[in-house]
């Protein structure tokens, strides 16, 4: 698989049928994400950024065209196969952190791998990633509600990295954080990228986009 792009979009179109008429969210988009890239996706709201990110994350499949994730074509995969890809190959970081409130910080981080791996191994791996995110050991057993926004986002990043994904997808990762905390989070992501992690990040903020090495602009479902 070496040399293959992580992601390959071939003429991808996504149409949402609505009663008021079809909405074309993505219009014949082709793009490639190579291993080790750090890409910012920018564009006005409603331009198709989220749709693009959802497809990269195997949450959605195209209406037409083909998407290859590490060489595998995903557009005809079953829901279960797509879920497995998300679990094993992809890390998600959301604007709202989206931690599971019923689980402690460390259990949140474990979640994706505990589904496939023994508890002990999962715990060991979770601790390793959380420490790499500069999270204090004392916070591990806290519930998400007891953590600050910055801490929650670090836990979320740890969760996204715990399965050692091929691709880390971030949707406005600093959108809910103050500037200082946001900068710290971006530093963490940049550090991950320097170590070889491939990252695609959606953002409004040109300053945040500055951390990326390449920026894709999208307007009305087309790459600009």
């Amino acid at each position: 698989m070496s040399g293959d792009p992580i992601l390959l979009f071939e003429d991808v179109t996504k149409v949402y049928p609505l009663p008021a008429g079809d909405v074309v969210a993505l219009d014949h988009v082709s793009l490639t994400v190579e291993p080790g890239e750090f890409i910012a996706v920018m564009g006005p709201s409603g331009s198709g950024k989220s749709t693009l990110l959802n497809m990269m994350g195997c949450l959605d499949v195209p209406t037409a065209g083909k998407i290859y994730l590490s060489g595998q074509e995903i557009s005809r995969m079953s829901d279960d196969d797509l879920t497995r890809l998300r679990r094993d190959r992809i890390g998600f970081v959301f604007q709202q952190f989206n931690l599971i409130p019923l689980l402690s910080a460390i259990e949140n981080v474990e979640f994706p791998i505990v589904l496939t791996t023994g508890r002990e191994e999962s715990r060991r791996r979770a601790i390793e990633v959380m420490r790499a995110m500069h999270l204090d050991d004392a916070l591990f057993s806290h519930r998400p509600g007891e953590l600050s926004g910055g801490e929650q986002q670090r836990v979320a990043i740890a969760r996204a990295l715990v399965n050692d994904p091929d691709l880390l997808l971030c949707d406005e990762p600093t959108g809910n954080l103050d500037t200082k905390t946001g900068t710290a989070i971006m530093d963490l992501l940049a550090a991950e990228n320097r170590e070889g992690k491939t990252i695609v990040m959606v953002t409004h903020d040109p300053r945040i986009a500055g951390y990326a090495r390449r920026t894709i602009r999208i307007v009305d479902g087309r790459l600009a």
Partner: protein
Amino acid sequence: MIFLDLAVRNLKRHKVRSVLATVGIIIGVIAIASLGIMGSSLSALVGGLISDVSDTVLVTPHLAASSGDPFDPRNTLPARISGRNLGLIEKAAGQHRVIPMILATERLQVRDTGGYVTMYVVPADDIPFLLQEEAGIYPQGRSSGVMVGSLLADELDLHPGSRIDVGGESVRVVGIAAERGMGIDINPDYALIVTEDWYTERHGDQDYSRVVVKVSDLSEIEGVKAAIDQQINRRKEVVDVLDSREILEIYYETFDAINIFLLGIGAVSLLVASVSILNVMIISVTERTGEIGLMRSIGARRQEVLVMFLYESLILGIAGSLVGGIISITVGYYVSATVAEFFTGFAVSGGAGVPISVVIGYVVFGMAFGTVTSILAGFYPAWKAARLNPIEALRYE
């Protein structure tokens, strides 16, 4: 296991809601188990009241319409079986003992109390085949002694040797019949038993109200019945021929129906409980839509989400069933004890209790029913949760 963990934690997060849903199941399980136990204590007690006279074939005048139930009020019609037909019955019955009897009513006066009583008129020789004596002797031939049923004797404080007034004539009590319970042939506990000779001397020859055939070998019952039917009912229906097993069956059918009805009431209360579980689970799924979307997007499969919610309803069901089961064993015992007390006060000695295996059977049935309905109630919400589109669920606020 993490999904079981999540289910438990979610139930704990909404303690009051979970407890209330469980209470519904508890009540349902108790209802099913205790109504079931009550139903079977009823039938056990009534079964105890009906004395088992399985060796008996009963021949009664044919009724135009009858339920076949010996306690059917239509059976008290003053219809008779003629002496000629008695002869035919005797012929058909062969070596089996044929006991003709007349049911009469006489006024009884004992000291300052009195009133009408049932009187069984039976040939003197046959009385020992029908009744056990508790005290004294059986009435003999033409002598003026009468026998008194055990409960009537208790009530009026009669003993062998007591004098009573029957139809205006003073007679001596010679024997007390042992308690027998209700039977399909005769119910002597509150009655007088006199010899046929004594009766005909006073009232003249009469036809018989019913004829009892005591069959010495149970396997011959069908044959005897068929022979009697052959002999008498060839041209037109003159008599009805019944054996006690048939009649007991009618009873057990009736009580089975009551049992099913009682269980039905219990089942309805469990259904109500399952609706409350359904409600709680739907609320839970709606509240957790975002969480479900997140789990799905980071790798939880549909099936895993389904299982997580099924765990919730399973836990509610098992918890409710366990508590309900424990309570209903206690309640069940109390209920059957009360019913037994009520009945023993009324009629029969030695209250027929419900065997422990039946109690446990109904409790287990109630618990199984409770658990299964809970799982069924959880299925729709769980399925709904599993079908959620992760993108839309994530966006849900």
